[in-house]
């Protein structure tokens, strides 16, 4: 059901762990849905010099976390904010429809960390306009066509 890329990132996840004294930390998801992602960023200037994650969740939650950290490491904050869930999913050679919410979660986790960072530092990023880290996203629509049953 998963691509080889997903299985690779699941079984050998990159950047697992915590960053002591991280500059930015963001956590999204909740245990009810079975996925919690926590991201730690080390930021120098406007560059993300290090990133780590911890994830409670299914195979694709772990794989998307891993892929997302790889994709933003060494990038600017702006670039990181422009990371979309589709880009993460594509980088993994796709996700099953029922798992697309995991990639959404990964995007949200990056945003949440930067949101917290911006709040602390009094910075403003237009990419974060309208973003609310506590919002309950309907990321658990499993995409079944329940049409009429």
């Amino acid at each position, binding site marked *: 059901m998963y691509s080889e890329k997903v*299985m690779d990132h*699941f*079984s050998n*996840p990159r950047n*697992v762990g*915590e960053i002591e004294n991280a500059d930015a930390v963001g*956590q999204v998801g*909740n*245990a*009810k*849905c*079975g*996925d*919690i*992602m*926590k991201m730690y960023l080390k930021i120098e200037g406007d560059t993300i010099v290090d990133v780590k994650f*911890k*994830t*409670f*969740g*299914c*195979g694709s*939650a*772990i794989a998307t976390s891993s892929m997302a950290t790889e994709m933003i490491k060494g990038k600017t904050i702006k670039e990181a904010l422009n990371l979309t869930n589709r880009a993460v999913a594509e980088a993994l050679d796709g996700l099953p429809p*029922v798992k697309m919410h995991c990639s959404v979660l990964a995007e949200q986790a990056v945003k949440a960390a930067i949101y917290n960072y911006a709040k602390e530092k009094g910075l403003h990023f237009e990419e974060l306009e309208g973003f609310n880290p506590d919002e309950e996203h309907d990321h658990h629509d*499993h995409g*079944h066509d329940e049409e009429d049953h």
Partner: protein
Amino acid sequence: MKKRVYLDYSATTPMKKEVLDEMLPFFNVQFGNPSSIHCFGRENKSAVDKARSTIAKTLNAGVDEIFFTGGGSEADNWGIKGVANALKDKGKHVITTKVEHHAVLHTCQYLEKDGFDVTYLDVDQYGMIKIDELKAAIRPDTILITIMFANNEIGTIQPIKEIGKIAKDYKITFHTDAVQAYGNVKIDVKDLGIDLMSLSAHKIYGPKGIGLLYIKKGTKIHPIIHGGAQERRRRAGTENVPAIVGFGKAAELAYENIDEHVNQLVTLRNRLINGLQEKIPYIHLNGHPTKRLPGNCNISIEFIEGEALLLMLDMVGIAGSSGSACTSGSLDPSHVLMAIGLTHEVAHGSLRLTIGDYTTEEDVDYVIEQLPPIVERLRQMSPLYEKVKGGR
């Protein structure tokens, strides 16, 4: 080939060789339609009759009380909707539990849309219904009680005989889903006071796509598959002769040495449970400690999520499940685990390992060896675990 350890016998079982051998001639040699008059048909009619009688004997039922279906789900749907439709003029209240298989639960929910009233009984921390609550739920318009014999996820066995007695006292039809119990528990439908019972062959080393509904003589029930005159006019469709023959053989094998079979399963299962409990912290057994299916081990492993666990187990060749296999199309936490009071996160971390006739001690020991490092690895990735390590 890589080591493969199958511990998902509650999802489905491999067919036994004796079963397949018994079925083979009916695919292309003795293939006639048993409803036909000619010899191609007649010889099959007697094969079907034989299987029916073998199964009836294992249940202490009459041969004219066994009606073959296309599986356990159909039998559940039939038992419930068939009675609801037959008795709706008498009343529209049905009693069931919160821990039923989806084949029962979703059928009851469909009845609700159709104007029926359904009471879903709570269960205790072990998944047991409370007899008092059952009694209290009975109303003058209650027409059906449907309570499963043994739970497919946590293995808990309900007090069927007491339920049967109450149903009889109140003159309410009693259906039980015994798909998981059959072959693992001795079942005497008369002694237990069962009016309707669903079984499925593929859980007892028989073929998929065949089940049955036991219908006690005199029980009022409508068909749900209308058509030809098969199954004494109660379930239409050309008889699935090879599968019926296979079901009969599987039933025979299951009951000819049931005590031995159960003992073996219990021994291995306890070895597994004890081994895991010794090696892994923060885990606990779900379901009743003793009133449970012999092959069922269901544990909650805190701080991690079940699908990830299953994938890692799969990589080392171990096949288990997290919640019911039938529900894995949805990854919502299992309704059964919620009903026994687990939190969402603990429910998500449940692992069901079910042992069967081909499981060896070696298999069990392999799991006891492989699971702890996998759990530790996933916990290391989990943001829920850090707090504990820091705190507790």
